[in-house]
């Protein structure tokens, strides 16, 4: 059994006694290199302001999140062994990620549309983004909470 433990094939999956799936060392270093490259890309891209170049807001955020999600998937799949493990672990972790997505989606579907419903809803709903344009210079007072 000791010898079988160093093999990276998937044939032993049915073997209830033999439990270690040893990932080849090359895979770990390849993932590490990809993560470093991802970090370099995110930092490099952050020096380019797409808001100015393309005139579209949040492109930097979008690019940074695409790179971050790719890095996260690499860590999950290889460092955390989700690619080779029982899929119940991937489902467990993904369910948390899905709830995170719901949290973001519901919150921002409210926040991002507030300015549009302002007239119908009265003063309770306000477009904070519109306020932002005048707020900085016009608020010298400090609230003490």
């Amino acid at each position, binding site marked *: 059994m000791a010898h079988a433990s160093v093999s990276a094939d998937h044939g032993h999956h049915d073997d209830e006694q033999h439990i270690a799936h040893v990932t080849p060392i090359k895979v770990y270093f390849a993932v590490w290199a990809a993560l470093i490259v991802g970090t370099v890309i995110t930092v490099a891209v952050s020096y380019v302001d797409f808001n100015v170049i393309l005139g579209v*807001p949040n492109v930097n955020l979008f690019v940074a999140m695409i790179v971050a999600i790719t890095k996260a998937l690499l860590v999950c799949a290889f460092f*955390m062994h989700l690619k080779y493990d029982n899929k119940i672990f991937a489902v467990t972790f993904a369910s948390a990620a899905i709830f995170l997505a719901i949290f973001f989606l519901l919150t921002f579907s409210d926040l991002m549309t507030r300015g549009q419903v302002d007239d119908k809803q009265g003063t309770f709903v306000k477009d904070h983004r519109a306020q932002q344009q005048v707020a900085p210079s016009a608020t010298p007072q400090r609230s003490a909470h």
Partner: protein
Amino acid sequence: MSGSHHDNPYLAHHFDTPRQQLEANKLGIWLFLGQEIMFFSALFVGLMIFRSWYPQMYHTAAHELSVPQGAFNTIVLICSSLTMALAVRWAQMDVPNNNRTVFWLCLATFALAGVFLVVKYFEYSHKIHVGTLPGKFFDPSNPEFPAALKQFDNAKLFFGFYFCLTGLHGIHVLAGMGVIGWIMVRARRNEFNSKNFAAVECVGLYWHLVDLVWIFLFPLLYLVG
């Protein structure tokens, strides 16, 4: 109780097979990690709401953070994830001196975690020095307070999120160092082999989550202002 249990000293009596035992251990950790995502999610959502409300202030405040220090720490954590993953790999193998290798790889992970916290110490000290702090500690009257931030009274909110998120993450790093130290002690006792590595793997999973959180924290706080 079946006879096979006596063949494997690592198999607890309430499990049928080593695989079942390992997967039960790991399911527990994965549920915990799912909870950790939920735990951090409120702060992440709050940070993004705040960014969407006050983009100019967020932009200006984020530029006060040191990208080189943040990027360096990102690289440090990625390297620590590699050494941790390799430690798990050696814990899984019945090769000579595998516990010794596990020990040294865990020590490397521990040291990199220490480097991360030392850099964080310098970042925090700088903010304390210039007065870019949360809530009532936010001090624009500080002579070294960043000039660009003076017009944004609500920048204290940004530093509130900064200190809560990085502080919470820092506590996770400290806890990680604790459990990695525990693995080092056990590796010293030659406890790990291809039939008994669940502890190393579970600590590894936790450590990778600490890395995952930072993978998102770094761009959101330092880069996308």
